[in-house]
């Protein structure tokens, strides 16, 4: 049973420069008011897409729809050319707010290896252990691996969650505000890590950090109930701000990519 499943996943069509997430005419309502309206967006193989937008703009909701935690009220989401249930096995997802109990008796290592889950009746193999160790090392928390999950700082916990998303070696990494707790010193190396990872996986991340966008990212999407802009970041950020009241930071900083670009280098 399990073999059939994993074979199917490998057979999912998967080329370079291909669209891996296709969202068409997406609507979403929690209650009466639409949170997302008429969203059309595609994510490409090797994409490095930043989603920006004000608080409550629907960014988290959009990611939850892509991984199937929420069901669209209208429209279509296709992941790796197939249904979400199939396609999401190639996705690594890091939520904005973790829903778990910090008192839960579990170590950092055991949390991260859950990212490598393959199916019922399949044990974690030596390779899973090795990959988990590697991932912990990649995000710089290997020495915390036996720590209880409740004994971490906010930034350390965030890295655990990034590691859990990365552990399965996904083809698409979805990160919901991965940098909100990362210190400025780590920030640069974190983005450099993303750039490195981007060579082998597409990355979509939500951020309020406009500086990063101007330096590292390939594409930008601006979400505030509707998708106001989607495309290359070049020369667009300033205009975006004026036209669509998109994120506060942009408004405050004027044309941030120039200013912050200098910082970055």
């Amino acid at each position, binding site marked *: 049973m399990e073999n059939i499943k994993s074979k199917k996943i490998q057979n999912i069509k998967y080329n370079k420069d291909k669209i891996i997430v296709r969202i068409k005419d997406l609507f979403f309502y929690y209650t009466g008011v639409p949170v997302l309206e008429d969203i059309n967006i595609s994510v490409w193989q090797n994409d490095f897409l930043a989603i920006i937008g004000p608080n409550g703009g629907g960014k988290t909701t959009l990611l939850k729809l892509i991984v199937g935690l929420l069901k669209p009220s209208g429209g279509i989401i296709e992941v790796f050319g197939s249904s979400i249930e199939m396609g999401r096995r190639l996705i690594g997802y890091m939520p904005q707010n973790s829903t778990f109990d910090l008192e*839960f008796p*579990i170590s950092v290592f055991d949390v991260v290896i859950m990212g490598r889950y393959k199916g019922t009746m399949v044990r974690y193999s030596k390779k899973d252990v090795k990959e988990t160790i590697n991932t912990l090392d990649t995000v710089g928390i290997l020495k915390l691996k036996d720590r209880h999950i409740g004994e971490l700082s906010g930034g350390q916990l965030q890295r655990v969650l990034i590691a859990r998303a990365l552990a399965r070696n996904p083809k698409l990494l979805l990160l919901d505000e991965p940098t909100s707790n990362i210190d400025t010193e780590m920030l640069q190396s974190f983005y450099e890590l993303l750039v490195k990872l981007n060579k082998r996986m597409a990355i979509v991340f939500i951020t309020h950090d406009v500086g990063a966008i101007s330096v590292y990212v390939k594409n930008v999407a601006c979400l505030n109930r509707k998708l106001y802009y989607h495309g290359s970041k070049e020369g667009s950020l300033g205009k975006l701000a004026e036209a669509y009241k998109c994120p506060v930071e942009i408004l405050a900083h004027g044309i941030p990519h120039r200013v912050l670009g200098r910082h970055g280098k």
Partner: protein
Amino acid sequence: MEIFQYEFIKNAVITAVLINIACGIVGTFVVTKRIVFISGGISHAAFGGIGLGYFLGLDPIITAIPFSILAAFGIGFIAKKTKVGEDAAIGILWAIGMSLGIIFINLTPGYAPDLFSYLFGNILTIPFNDLIIMVVLDMIIVVVTILFYKEFKAISFDEEFSKVAGVPVDLLYFLLLGMVALSVVILIKVVGIILVIALLTIPAAICRQFTNNIKTMIFLSMSTGIILTISGLWISYILDLASGATIIMVLGLAFILSYLAKYLFLSIKKYKSSKEFCK
């Protein structure tokens, strides 16, 4: 007389071991997943099934099993799929189940069973048949847990992520609730509703303070449960008190002591490290 008493105690000890195998496993997940109150709801709703059994003239266990499994799924369904508060749903099923049980028993002509024994059970008068049933229950629970350990751990820790990672979350959640229901019903007959809840939660709650690992917690809870149950039995025998209630008092006392022990342990650790810091 003496041998008879010995037989008594032997069965009670075996019972203590068998019960705590089930409770150590199921209780660990109940406590870490924070569904203690759900388990309380299930066990009281099961009372309706017990009453139905008397009314129909069947072995109460036979009617209580489907009854409590339905109650478990009902609570699970309401908690997951509707916006009625989970706690409200539990409260409602809890009350309805108990009342149904009493009404069924009222309607049953003649013989009125000892309701008190369903609250506190009687671990000292376990018939051999019930021991067999408990062995079967333990085997089911152990096998299911070995098969789905990884998943139970994952959904107890983080349902949302488990779902994204491809764990069949809803199915396993219902399986877990089913396991709770099954243990509760079978153990009610043996030790009563109140002791079931105590044995599910107290050993696990004690042990959670001392480990960061679910597997360790399961084995610790089992052994703690066994030791405390047998100590309680022993004390009740010496002081000639009701066994179920005495066991619960011992469990409660142990919890308080363990809490103090943990507190003391942490203070000593803090004190030591602050001393090192000053050097």
